[in-house]
């Protein structure tokens, strides 16, 4: 029997507790279809960025991707300007949207590959590289847009991506779940996924086993960039404008989600389903704080405190501790991993 993932149990418990607490505190409006839909449509932006952070962390060797939101904004602005210069938004909305979507993915992929090549070929520490590219991407976005917001407008198909529903579920949320599922399968069942985790947990051993480390790292950061590009697409679809300084707090929140999901900052372990759940939980909490009427600043404070709390929980393996405590009554060997 596979060992129960303690972190997953914790996240599911939190999820249930938050839903119940929200329902009780708001007298039911929190659980109304409208509120659930609006919460679901806010998850994908952060969720995609957080999966990107998770991938980079899994690659190990101090891996982290700080350029996510900068990349997303660049993708939105660059691809938006490009698509607008070819197809007028109002006359050819479908062609515009297709170009825009492809453009976002391509820009993200290029940016991510750039990160990956700098890290794997030049041997620059991921923190430093992504700090540099974060500033560089933001800079390019500012230059392209002249520092102003770029108006994408609301062409029909693009608007649908950001605000439409299928069977009452927001399309952007479905896209997010689709991408996450695909990625989860890739990480679990392809040679790339297995090699990524092995490289992350022991770089030297992986290299001696003949893994092409440079290629694995480059692919990982390219994927992270691609996810950021998709986040940029959803940001553009949900908001009428794209701008270089959108979502300045997203960097912290993406890292917070990854840490909540039990991703190890030292590399080698991370599960997509936990990241998805953690992103949803954060959104539930954020909406709950809104319902109670707390300001954005209190929310920032709460995110900081929450990040430190989860670091604390992970550091002292509190979840496993309790898990072992309960299961030791049933099976004396369960506490030994």
């Amino acid at each position, binding site marked *: 029997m596979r060992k129960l993932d303690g972190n997953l149990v914790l996240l599911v418990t939190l999820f249930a507790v938050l839903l119940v607490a929200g329902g009780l505190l708001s007298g039911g409006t929190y659980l109304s279809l409208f509120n659930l839909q609006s919460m679901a449509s806010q998850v994908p932006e952060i969720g995609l960025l957080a999966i990107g952070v998770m991938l980079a962390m899994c690659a190990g060797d101090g891996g982290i991707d700080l350029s996510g939101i900068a990349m997303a904004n660049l993708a939105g602005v660059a691809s938006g300007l490009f698509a607008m210069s070819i197809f007028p938004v109002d006359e050819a909305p479908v062609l515009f949207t297709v170009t825009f979507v492809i453009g976002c993915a391509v820009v993200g992929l290029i940016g991510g590959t750039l990160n990956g090549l700098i890290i794997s070929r030049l041997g*620059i520490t991921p*923190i430093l*590289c992504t700090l540099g*590219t974060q500033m*560089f991407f933001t800079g390019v976005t500012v230059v392209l847009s002249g520092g102003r917001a770029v108006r994408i407008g609301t062409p029909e198909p693009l608007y649908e991506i950001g605000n439409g529903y299928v069977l009452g579920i927001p399309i952007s949320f479905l896209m997010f779940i689709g991408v996450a599922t695909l990625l989860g399968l890739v990480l679990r069942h392809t040679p790339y996924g297995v090699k990524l985790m092995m490289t992350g947990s022991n770089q030297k051993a992986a290299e001696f086993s003949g893994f092409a480390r440079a290629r694995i790292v480059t692919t990982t950061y390219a994927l992270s960039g691609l996810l950021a590009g998709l986040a940029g697409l959803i940001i553009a679809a949900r908001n009428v404008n794209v701008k270089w300084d959108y979502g300045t707090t997203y960097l912290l929140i993406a890292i917070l989600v990854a840490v909540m999901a039990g991703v190890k900052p030292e590399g080698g372990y991370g599960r997509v389903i936990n990241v998805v759940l953690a992103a949803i939980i954060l959104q539930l909490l954020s909406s709950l704080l809104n319902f109670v009427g707390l300001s954005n600043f209190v929310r920032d404070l709460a995110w*900081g405190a929450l990040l430190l709390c989860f670091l604390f929980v992970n550091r002292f393996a509190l979840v496993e501790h309790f898990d072992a405590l309960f299961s030791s009554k049933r099976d004396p060997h369960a506490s030994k991993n």
Partner: protein
Amino acid sequence: MTMVQDMTDTAIPNPPRKERSLGQLFQRRPELVSLSILIVICVTVSIINPAFLQPSSLIDMGRASVVTGLFALGVFAILAVGGIDVSFTAIAALSMYSLTLFVINVYPTAPMTLVVVTAILGGAGLGALNGWLVNLLQVPSLIVTIGTQYLFRGFLLAFIGTVWLMELPPQMIAFGKAPLLSFETANGAVVSLPIYFLVFPAAAVVTWMIFNMTLMGRAVFATGGKADVAARLGYDQRTVHIFVFAFTGALAGLAGIIHVCANRMANPFDLVGTEIEVIAAVVLGGARITGGTGTVFGTVTGVLLITVVNNSLVLVGIPSTWQRVVVGAFILLAAAFFVTRQQKQ
């Protein structure tokens, strides 16, 4: 005066004979590269636009370098111990705003010395909390300090205040205005270099002394070079971490109060967001982000480089929107350069 750290390359044995070629010199002393770039940029800019050399623009740059410089000395210390800190701007904002608020409302006649000392101590306290957490949680300090950045800033904006304080007490305004040097420009306006400019060189000298002449300085470089070896040598990791982060916090508190006095107002939304530029300055000064290296001299050079780049783009006709692209490219190029240097060794 030698600025090279003795501990710079503990892992790599020194070459038996000192090579005399320029390339070798640059490899041993990366900060000389930054210095050369700085000189080249200054000469180029002053040829394209001689206005660069006017006292007023030089003094502007001198003033602008103080806050960045104090932050950078702190970041230098953190990089030396092998960590990274993004919360120092939040520490500066929290300590400067709450202190100014306190002085205005509770103790308007507080002597300036007391204000400055309180700012330093407050910053050191918050920094020590960082150091304690980094040691306790055993995760990369980047992640811990991202958390504390939001904690500190959220606390400031949620509980202390969000309004700009425009009416500073007189002693703080006097501190911000007191001139060290005054010039009269061609059109009759008087520009003066404020006395607080001296804080930056003074802090640089103090930092240099701590990191080159005390046991704690050696402990910091040893920990940054190889933490487990340093621990086995008997350097208490918790003390080292708390000291370094508190030192950075103290410099941030000082920078915050100077920022208030220089601008004659306290804006709680200021400062946070400038971290990356400060880190860039220190990296440009030749410190490795993986720890154990770096020099105070290099850090000062890096700060001057960033300040000059920020202030001279417009003078040579590059629109200010390009500023981030240039700084970002500088970070990547500098990092690539120093990494290849490392591999050659």
